[in-house]
């Protein structure tokens, strides 16, 4: 019954988005930290792939018996695997960009752009999730 409270509406989707943006942040910071490491190839998580995966799960839940309740069931892909409600991320090596003489495939501008994008998505998801929790809280308190 308690789990049902947290599996309602857009909450599962928002939670997964947050875990994804945290994992992507980690991958991008890893790239920045290794900006001058020889032979380093940057890794990244593809947000579009993840959104597609999430969209499929949302569609499946909408077609189920109770369209707004219940957990999302993500289908596993190469970069995201879900088991027992925890998401595991495997950042993939990007093949594009210029290869420098130290055989490091860095691209600072693109990394910073991805970082900014990721932060924006993260903050939006946090804002929305906070308002979901706030609504639940006011329903429990019986005071707005």
């Amino acid at each position: 019954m308690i789990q049902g409270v947290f599996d309602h509406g857009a909450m599962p989707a928002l939670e997964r988005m947050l875990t994804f943006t945290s994992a992507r942040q980690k991958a991008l910071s890893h790239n920045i930290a290794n900006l001058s490491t020889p032979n380093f190839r940057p890794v990244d998580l593809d947000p579009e792939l993840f959104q597609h995966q999430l969209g499929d799960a949302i569609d499946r839940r909408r077609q189920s018996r109770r369209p707004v309740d219940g957990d999302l069931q993500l289908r596993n892909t190469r970069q995201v695997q879900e088991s027992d409600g925890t998401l595991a991320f495997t950042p993939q090596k990007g093949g594009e960009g210029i290869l420098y003489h130290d055989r490091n495939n860095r691209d600072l501008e693109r990394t910073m752009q991805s970082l900014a994008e990721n932060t924006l998505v993260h903050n939006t998801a946090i804002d929305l999730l906070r308002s979901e929790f706030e609504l639940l809280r006011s329903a429990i308190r019986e005071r707005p």
Partner: protein
Amino acid sequence: MSDPLGLIPNATQTGTDAARAGGAQRTEATTAFRDVLMQEIEQVNRLQKDAEQAIEDLVAGRRDDVDAVAIAKNQADIAFQLLLQVRNKMADAYEEVKQIRV
């Protein structure tokens, strides 16, 4: 008298025929309070559902109008809080009526 709002489905069975007739006349002339209330609850529910769906679509990358989604979500929240406050006022009024000695 026992059910002025008509909220209890079979309350009229205990009332007199005259009272029932009077009640029926009233509901014909004006919209019953219950109907108004139920309509509002429906509307709040729909706003909430639409907002949740909009958020899901945003997260899935099917729409990119973050501002519209945020506004929809906030409107749904305000609507719910208004309904909550109406419910509180009604509960307060009920408590007050309960104190009246007959």
